């Protein structure tokens, strides 16, 4: 039995030739990366400057045994435990406007998974200015609990934002809502890859 035997028919071949960048490995990035690995993405470029702390474990894809490790190292281990063949390009670095394109650019699309709104803004806009044909899939408004029906996808061209665009960190961050939005991002990424790469082959 192969790892992807139960995958959606026809997508494994496409995802096997795809690369996704994930900027930030907190609640959004770690959960999105895991879903992408399980879906069969062959390469992930991941970047985060932080280490795993106890307070991360209420929503981020880490375990007690990860505490103190860099997030890139801990998550890379988990991704390879899911799919030993996945290529994980790790960057333990603080992403900036100046280094982001060279670190994250060699991929089909970007998952924005930052914490601060001001950083989301420059990340989304820097990517959009540099890559007209590659989407940035961002998240805004995933805090608090409940209000599942408020979570939506807002898109304009290659800028896509998931979440309610209202709730913020002052309401606290809880696993279900953060994970739902992270998985909305992963789901959109897979959908975009399958749709666009299939079209490229025609």
């Amino acid at each position, binding site marked *: 039995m192969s790892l992807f035997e139960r995958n959606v028919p026809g997508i494994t071949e496409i995802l096997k030739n795809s690369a996704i960048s994930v900027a930030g490995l907190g609640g959004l*990035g770690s959960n999105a990366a895991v879903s992408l690995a399980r879906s069969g993405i062959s390469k992930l470029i991941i970047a985060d400057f932080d280490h795993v702390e106890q307070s991360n474990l209420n929503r981020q894809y880490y375990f007690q045994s990860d505490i103190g490790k860099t997030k890139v190292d801990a998550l890379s281990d988990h991704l390879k435990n899911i799919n030993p063949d996945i290529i994980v390009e790790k960057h333990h670095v603080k992403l900036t406007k100046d280094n982001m394109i060279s670190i994250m650019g060699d991929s089909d699309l970007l998952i924005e998974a930052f914490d601060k709104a001001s950083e989301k803004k420059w990340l989304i*806009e820097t990517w959009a200015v540099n890559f007209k044909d590659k989407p940035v899939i961002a998240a805004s408004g995933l805090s608090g609990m409940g209000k599942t029906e408020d979570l939506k996808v807002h*898109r*304009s061209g290659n*800028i896509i934002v998931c979440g309610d665009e*209202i709730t*913020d960190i002052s309401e606290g961050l809880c696993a279900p809502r953060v994970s739902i939005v992270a998985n909305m991002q992963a789901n959109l990424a897979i959908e975009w890859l399958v749709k666009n790469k299939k079209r490229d082959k025609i």
Partner: protein
Amino acid sequence: MIIVNNRDKLEWKNGMTVRDVLSAMGHVYPLITVTVNEELVEEEDYDTRKVPDNSSISVFHLAHGG
């Protein structure tokens, strides 16, 4: 007529800028990303970028949390 966020309608006026649209719609969030007809408009251009009639504008509100 201008459509904002695929939902709200705003009467177009000659010479209207992105800033005018944001003011008319009452957008008060400090951090937003704006597109006009699917093209990003950077903040430094909000006061000068003219919005053509029949444009579709998206205003993404960016909230903390990730």
